[in-house]
């Protein structure tokens, strides 16, 4: 599952553009993750700040 560290995120939309599932959406100043997310981790690479993290179900 994808965790958005909102204290780090700069709400820029970079991650939105690379998600193959269309699971992310930038709602102005915060990011929403839909159930379409597969946890593939592509977006976590693209983020200029490192605000995204794929976590195990147990940890969240």
């Amino acid at each position, binding site marked *: 599952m994808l965790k958005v560290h909102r204290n780090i995120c700069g709400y820029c939309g*970079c991650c939105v553009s690379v998600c193959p599932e269309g699971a992310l959406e930038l*709602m102005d100043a915060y990011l929403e993750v839909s159930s379409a997310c597969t946890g593939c981790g592509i977006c976590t690479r693209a*983020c200029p700040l*490192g605000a995204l993290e794929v976590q195990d179900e147990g940890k969240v």
Partner: protein
Amino acid sequence: MKERYDVLIIGSGPGGAIAARTAANAGLSVCIVEKRPAVGTPVRCAEGIGMDALAEFIEPDPAWISAEMAGAEIIAPDGTSMRLSSQMAGSKVGYILERKLFDRELVKQAVAAGADVFMKTRAAAPILEDGYVCGAKLEHNGTVADVRAAVTIAADGVESKFSRWCGIDTTVPLREIMSSAQYLMTNINIEPNITVFYLGNTVAPEGYLWVFPKGDRMANVGIGISGRKSGDGHRAIDYLDTFVKAHFPEGKIIESIVAGVSVCRPLESTVADGLIIVGDAARVVDPLTGGGIYNAMFTGKLAAETAVKCLKSGDVSKKALMEYDQAWRASKMGKTIERNYKVKEYLIRQPDEKLNSLIRSVKEIDLAEMSTFNLIRELVRRNPRILLDFGAIKEFLA
């Protein structure tokens, strides 16, 4: 807000604003919706644009120009510098804008032409009927309203979702997103009218770092790196911090932004039934420079002109709107994207030593007309062997 417009435009960036101004000037009823609370902010841009490119769309005004540029400098990985200047000494070649004010001015002009505009209003879904995009569901302050339109223009930028909701795959490959960070810095020593670009795998892997002056002792200092080179401990922000510490230790950061810019090929189709896609949403950024302000305005204008024609003939099918798609691909902008895509693909595969030798070969050029095209032509002239690697771009350089 009316229930129906001729044209509904999603996004108030340069693409959306010029589309709105053009369509409204032609007498159409036009509505722009923007999810952010203010036009143009936060800025996601280094704010550079060529003088002639800007003049195609708007009269330059010091109110939204931060600085005038007379040339550029490219710094190789080993520190070798190449200076580019215009042949006419002292003449300016481009501007660094104040995008917050520039974008606002464009929207103001669209409104003066008759367009409606609604802020903090998000397109949440398309209205789809018989496969046609017929407008959008708009969310505003907790309410949802249907707004119908004969033509919908998606100008929703790099984070575009609208076209995807209409069934178009807009995914940018990880390696072709420039993961970016930028500081607006003050109290730094810079040449006030020269843009500087730093290349190299240790500075900015598969991308570049820029210093774009914004006035006295002030500049946009930013970086874009390929998404595939980005990861924990080596993200855009890490490279930027390293650079800033080494080059501008005395500087102070007065604005800090992050962003993404696509350097992939444009979408395979930038139209659908009732829908036209423009600017960053269509992925029409110049893949070599990352410049997209002009391209957004150019496609925005063309989209509106096509909408005007198709509304007149009463046919807004994909087939009819395809005129837009074909026109921008055949334009100078479309051809430049195609050429620069190949140049970019070539350059990102070069090791630092090769970049050093390329830049050393030129050092100083006086270009009659400062453009990436002239620069590439000059590089090839002095390094004829590049042509062997370039192959397919030969015809563009002829």
